[in-house]
């Protein structure tokens, strides 16, 4: 753990990503304690008010401006991040559990199981993910659960492919043969000998997937298929604000910036994490 932080501090990009991500997550976690204005209640006297930094701590201040019905944009951004982060991380964890398990199964069992699973992956890869997501959400109706499910559905294949490749080489390692020699069951070998050795790659895939899923979540809510109003979401803010782009730039700029910064921080941190766990780049240091 000590080594982890020492290494992180040496990488400017990784550290930047980690700190930024930590700030975003902390803001989301402690949003209720920040005494922000109600993100769902508008102030009709202050519609499309521009960002003002004077009187920042007075009750009626809107540091990032307000939207077309007078709701505070800063408050909506922070409350929106709660939903985005929750939906995205649930989807990534769910996809990760399913994808890792199926990847281990395909890699270890081989044969027919492997062939069926990998064909499934190939077929799903041939369908554009966004189209798949649109179809599923349109068919099942937009709800948080459905969005999480569809995002997980687009995610599991990425885990499954990478984990399977890892397992193909692990399977030949002598400690796996040794487990077979003592008569350990297939389940025992998969969970006690293989799973602990693929957790690291699964974690790396997870962070990279998180960035992708955040964008996809925003895109779904931009199209009106994500979280339903009045609950704030970044994609929805972009969609609603784009009409006022020429007159009130802040309505789209800040949600756009929030998406970019979050994805950037996750990507930078994920890239560093991948290098950190890659024995080849590690031994080069």
């Amino acid at each position, binding site marked *: 753990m000590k080594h982890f932080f020492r290494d992180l501090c040496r990488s400017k990009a990784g550290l930047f990503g980690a700190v930024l991500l930590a700030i975003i997550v902390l803001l989301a976690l402690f949003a209720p304690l920040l005494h922000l204005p109600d993100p769902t209640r508008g102030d009709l006297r202050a519609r499309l008010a521009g960002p003002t930094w004077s009187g920042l701590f007075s009750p009626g201040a809107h540091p990032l401006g307000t939207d077309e019905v007078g709701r505070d944009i800063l408050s909506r951004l922070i409350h929106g991040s709660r939903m985005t982060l929750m939906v995205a991380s649930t989807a990534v964890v769910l996809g990760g559990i399913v994808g890792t398990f199926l990847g281990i199964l395909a890699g270890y069992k081989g044969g027919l199981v492997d062939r069926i699973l990998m064909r499934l992956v190939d077929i799903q890869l041939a369908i554009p993910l966004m189209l798949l997501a649109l179809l599923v959400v349109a068919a099942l109706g937009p709800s948080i659960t459905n969005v999480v499910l569809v995002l997980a559905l687009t995610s599991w294949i990425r885990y499954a492919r990478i984990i399977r490749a890892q397992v193909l080489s692990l399977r030949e*390692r*002598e*400690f796996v*043969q*040794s*487990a*077979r*020699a*003592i*008569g*350990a*069951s297939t389940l*025992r070998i998969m969970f*006690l*000998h293989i799973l*602990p*050795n693929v957790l690291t790659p699964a974690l790396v895939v997870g962070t990279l997937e998180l960035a992708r899923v955040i964008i996809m979540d925003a895109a779904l809510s931009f199209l009106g298929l994500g979280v339903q109003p009045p609950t704030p979401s970044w994609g929805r803010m972009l969609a609603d604000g784009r009409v006022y782009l020429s007159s009130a730039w802040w309505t789209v700029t800040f949600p756009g910036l929030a998406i970019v910064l979050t994805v950037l921080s996750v990507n930078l941190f994920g890239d560093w994490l991948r290098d950190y766990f890659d024995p080849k780049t590690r031994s080069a240091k």
Partner: protein
Amino acid sequence: MTTSPPVLEVNGLMRSYGGGKTLFRKEKPVIHAINDVSFQIAEGETLGLVGESGSGKSTTGRAVLHLETPDAGSVRFRGQELTTLAGKALKPYRREMQMIFQDPYSALNPRMKVGRFVAEPMVVHGTESGSALQDRVAELFRLVGLDPAFMSRYPHEFSGGQRQRINIARAIALKPAFIVADEPITALDVSIQAQIVNLFQDLQDQLGLAYLFIAHDLSMVRYLCSRVAVMLRGRIVEIAPTEQIFSDPRHPYTQSLLAAIPVPDPDRRRPPRPPFDVSRNIPPREAQMAEVAPGHFVLDHPIQ
């Protein structure tokens, strides 16, 4: 020759790799990794299995332990045929036969504490649990010359020799009757090799183990094995008591292996002989073993 009954009888064992043409895959060339391999090992005996890299020694070991299914042939453990068994029926025999691998680094699960790793066979077979299990693991650690305090460490904290001791502790945990040791000292420092060989010897004396001891040169098997089998391209070409292999080698390949052992004393150096050309002397399929002396068999085939 040996009076005690065999713990293991292997007859006509075959295993090939490759082939397997499917709709999406081209057929790979077929490699006959082992071909018509037969031998016996008595209770408490050590048979050496020697041959160059790729001659099929590891495949023999794995096929004997049913880690892979042989294409043909029979493996009998104390009279019970194993090749026809699968799954649950095989499990009781897993207690009796174990394997120690060549690479002590890849033989340990890097994410499992070594104490748990050594305990695993007993957990799988339900022979021991709770504090009795802990005591047994500590006893095994002492038996192979490791401090039981190391139990809660991970493999990366150990040297190659220590790792091999951990592997040995795991292999003997269920008090097996027979162990395949696949080049167990090849990857170790020369200074450690003798210690591990002594450990094998001590354990054999204490536990009455029989070994199939695999090595790639004859010098390693000399002091441990009562008999030696020499393997060439998947076939056993000579099998005899160790003294006879060293004093009266009959097959030219055995002779070339002997000539390759460095002899420090110049007076005892053997006269140089033309090197044995392996690629021109692949034993034909139909070649048979002939008994040239009691217990001394040689594969009978023309030599270039």
